[in-house]
């Protein structure tokens, strides 16, 4: 605007005007040519200003980019005022300084200069928020410098501060600084400078104010936009993060839901599984459940471990009219759980009782399930019994507090046998009035395919596997396996099979089942026989691959002191037995107590037949062969008796005949001194003093009397009974009950075998046997060795190996041909 009429000032006669007026447009135009030219120039200047203002309004409002706004602002100010040097400064965080964000016209000045608020023209404008024009800066600085010198000369130098450099022209003569304001908020400062003195009219002030307002608004809008853009970005980022977290949480919840569904499915499977199947056994079980569900009396569930007694209890509860909860109590764990029960020291009730009482209260209107009730502490049994009898409150014993809880208990004990033997506690007598026998899986093998299908489908879904089923071979193996762990074991085996399976058809290899049937270093291979409370398994050493026979015996004793005493006795006797070296005593490899609390001992595996089987299958045996068997048994007994160990259960089933290398009819005495287990009879007992032991058919009178001092001659009596069986094929005393038979042993004189046997019996042998069968031990042979000597003197044709071999080849060729494993 070098031709701007502003530089020449306005005519003195022209009144002051506002910026919005158009001077001269409505005024009278004089005929004076100079005045006309001036008016024309004024109009041109106004038009130019209008164009600039219109353009700046358009340009500055068409962008939200700060750099573009600065550029438009600097260019516009330059076009309007031609100061040629301009700065735009914005407040810095903290509010104490301004920083140059854009500049124009300075050769050596980049943006980034800084001004303290309150210092210099710009700083004072920022502080006062008013426009300031100074056009005699040089004089002002000179005046201030003169004052400085004057003060220094007058000794007031300490009052003077340091000069503060400010961005801009060092030799500026004129400077205008305009605050950029939005509703009193300082947006920044626009500063223009000139090295020469420049006037700045009221019109210029108004003009620059208009432009400054435009700049302030544009900067403010751009910054708002930027802030909102950043906020939007932050919001978007937060949304993305939130969405990710929601998705993550959703996924976690879905996983938890799946796990919960699996657990529910698993729980249902545990409950429903045992009742699956169409066998007659399961139908009978379902009928029993329906019958018991309609009753309220206590119910006792018996059956082997893992057979599904808890599931049956759930089924009874579910089918009943009870609407209360089903409360589970593990009786073996009462000992450990009661530690968490607050105890009132004044109360006579033990912590276990308090815990049981609290469970009873929880079960109000529902069912209290006492798992393994045979392990309920003895001291709690009377209180529970009283509650069951009178429906009284367990805690107070007050019969006015009628209990509305249905009690269902479970046990693995053979209650039927205990009933017969009269060994039940009063509580058990009460509980056993209503019983359901939950069958072992081995007793319902026809249900195995349905159970396998049920568990495989549920477990496969739980583990996220695709399983079509089990292979025919695997199914055959599952159907023939003994399942000592019952349904629980079946489920575990299938679970493992699914986890290790690589295909869709499950294979159940032998190892998978073997692993479940291991005692010590031996894997159980197949069940050889079972009865009473014991089982005998063919086993194999894990490393040596040596065949062995493992006998498992479930102790008939509760956990606690009695069990511990039993274990110690078992260990002691096993150690003594292991010390026997007679080749006619079965060799003991190992013994112990497994995780289930069962005793086991591992002995050499023998191929052959016991004397009970031989006579049962092939009839009485000739004298010479009987003598051969008896003499071998005597050698075994002689060593044992020498160690003070009385067998107490000599009988044909414990006299096993095998082939030892080339030698046939090699006899081994089994079950030496450890545990007496008589298959087919409910008389499995440990050899504790004062307890009736042995098998009634072969029991010496002194054992019947329960005498405390029993010696090896009791075994000689039993051996003679066994010989009687061998020679005649009949028991010494036929009787209909064990008690009657025992009475015969005490009172009745035996009939000589020669009068009973269909085979001839050597007279000398008969005499020896009758001596052994004397009621008074003192009248029997002195010892096993004595008996052996007497037998050796019986005149008869010797039982030679070729006859023995011929016998085996004729009667049991498979045994002769078979090699263990």
């Amino acid at each position: 605007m070098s031709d701007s009429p502003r530089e020449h000032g306005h005519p003195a006669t022209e009144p002051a005007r506002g910026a919005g007026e158009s001077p001269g447009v409505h005024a009278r135009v004089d005929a004076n040519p100079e005045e006309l030219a001036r008016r024309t120039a004024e109009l041109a200047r106004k038009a130019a200003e209008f164009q600039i203002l219109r353009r700046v309004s358009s340009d500055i409002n068409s962008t939200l980019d700060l750099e573009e706004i600065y550029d438009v602002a600097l260019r516009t100010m330059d076009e309007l005022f031609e100061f040629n040097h301009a700065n735009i400064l914005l407040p810095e965080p903290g509010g104490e300084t301004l920083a140059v964000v854009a500049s124009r016209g300075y050769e050596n000045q980049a943006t980034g200069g800084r001004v303290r608020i309150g210092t210099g023209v710009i700083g004072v404008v920022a502080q006062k928020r008013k426009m300031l024009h100074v056009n005699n800066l040089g004089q002002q600085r000179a005046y201030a410098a003169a004052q400085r010198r004057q003060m220094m000369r007058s000794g007031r130098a300490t009052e003077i501060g340091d000069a503060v450099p400010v961005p801009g022209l060092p030799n500026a003569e004129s400077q205008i600084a305009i605050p950029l304001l939005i509703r009193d908020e300082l947006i920044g400062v626009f500063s223009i400078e000139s090295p020469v003195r420049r006037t700045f009219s009221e019109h210029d002030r108004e003009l620059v104010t208009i432009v400054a307002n435009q700049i302030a608004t544009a900067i403010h809008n751009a910054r708002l936009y930027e802030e909102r853009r950043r906020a939007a970005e932050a919001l978007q980022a937060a949304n993305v993060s939130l969405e990710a977290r929601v998705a993550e949480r959703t996924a976690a919840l879905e996983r938890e839901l799946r796990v919960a569904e699996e657990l529910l499915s698993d729980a249902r499977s545990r409950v429903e599984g045992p009742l699956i199947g169409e066998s007659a056994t399961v139908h009978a079980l379902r009928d029993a459940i329906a019958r018991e569900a309609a009753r309220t009396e206590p119910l006792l569930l018996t059956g082997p471990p893992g057979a599904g007694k808890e599931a049956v209890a759930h089924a009874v509860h579910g089918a009943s009219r009870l609407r209360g909860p089903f409360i589970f109590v593990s009786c073996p764990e009462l000992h450990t759980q009661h530690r968490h029960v607050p105890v009132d020291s004044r109360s006579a009730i033990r912590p276990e009782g308090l815990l049981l009482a609290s469970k009873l209260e929880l079960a109000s209107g529902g069912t209290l399930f006492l798992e393994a009730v045979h392990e309920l502490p003895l001291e709690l049994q009377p209180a529970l019994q009283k509650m069951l009898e009178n429906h009284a409150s367990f805690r107070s014993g007050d019969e006015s507090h009628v209990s509305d809880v249905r009690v269902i208990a479970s046990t693995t004990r053979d209650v039927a046998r205990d009933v017969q033997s009269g060994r039940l506690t009063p509580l058990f007598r009460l509980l056993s009035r209503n019983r359901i026998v939950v069958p072992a899986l081995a007793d319902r093998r026809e249900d195995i395919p349905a159970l396998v299908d049920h568990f495989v489908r549920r477990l496969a879904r739980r583990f996220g596997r695709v399983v079509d089923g089990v292979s025919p071979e695997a199914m055959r193996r599952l159907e023939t396996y003994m399942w000592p762990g019952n349904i629980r074991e079946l489920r575990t085996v299938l679970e493992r099979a699914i986890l290790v399976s690589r295909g869709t058809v499950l294979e159940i290899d032998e190892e998978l089942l073997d692993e479940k049937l291991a005692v010590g270093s031996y894997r159980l291979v197949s069940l050889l026989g079972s009865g009473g409370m014991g089982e005998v398994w063919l086993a194999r050493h894990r490393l040596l691959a040596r065949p062995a026979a493992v006998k498992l015996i479930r102790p008939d004793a509760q956990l606690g002191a009695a069990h511990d005493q039993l274990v110690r006795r078992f260990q002691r006797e096993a150690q003594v037995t292991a010390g026997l070296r007679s080749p006619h005593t079965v060799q003991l490899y190992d013994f112990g107590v497994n995780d289930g609390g069962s005793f086991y001992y591992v002995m050499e595996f023998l191929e052959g037949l016991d004397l009970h089987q031989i006579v049962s299958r092939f009839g009485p045996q000739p004298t010479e062969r009987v003598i051969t068997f008896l003499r071998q048994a005597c050698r075994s007994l002689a060593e044992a008796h020498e160690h003070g160990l009385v067998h107490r259960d000599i009988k044909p089933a414990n006299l096993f005949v095998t082939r030892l290398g080339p030698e046939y009819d090699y006899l081994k005495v089994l079950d030496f001194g450890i545990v007496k287990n008589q298959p087919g009879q409910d008389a499995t007992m440990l050899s504790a003093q004062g307890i009736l032991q042995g098998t009634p058919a072969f029991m010496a009178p002194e054992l019947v009397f329960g005498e405390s001092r029993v010696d090896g001659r009791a075994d000689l009596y039993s051996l003679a009974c066994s010989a009687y069986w061998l020679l005649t094929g009949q028991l010494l005393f036929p009787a209909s009950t064990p008690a009657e038979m025992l009475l015969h042993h005490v009172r009745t004189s035996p009939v000589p075998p020669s009068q009973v046997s269909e085979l001839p019996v050597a007279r000398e042998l008969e005499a020896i046997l009758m001596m052994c069968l004397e009621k008074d031990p003192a009248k029997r042979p002195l010892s096993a060795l004595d008996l052996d000597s007497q037998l050796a003197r019986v005149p008869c044709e010797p039982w030679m190996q070729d006859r023995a071999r011929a016998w085996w080849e004729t009667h049991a060729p498979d045994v002769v041909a078979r090699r263990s494993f």
Partner: protein
Amino acid sequence: MRTTRLPAEIRPVLDNGVPAVMVTCSADGVPNATVLSQVYYVDETHAALSFQFFSKTIRNVRENPRAYVCVFDITGHASWALQLEFQRSETEGPIFDAMEMQIEAIASATGMSGIFKLRAADIYRVLSVERLPSPEAAS
């Protein structure tokens, strides 16, 4: 031409802070001349002069309220002679603030804050205004 009102064209001259010379006279007739940093336009009949260090000037004005001020129009190349009469001093208000702002701007940048400052805005009534021939025109 002499007038008793400040003409419109003198306003930008005053607002732009053109340096001025002020002459006062003591009661006993001794004159004193000094340089003014600001002559502020108040209205057509009043102007404000900055009171900073002029102890002699102030004393003279207190004794003899008459003052003579000469201002220069650097763009119009004209000078103006103002005869004034002291009326009052203001230490606050819009006139004081406007004058103080400029002084503070210079003082703060030259290390003279607190020293080089406006002490008061002295308000004078305009007795006469006369435009003088410019030096260039005179020569």
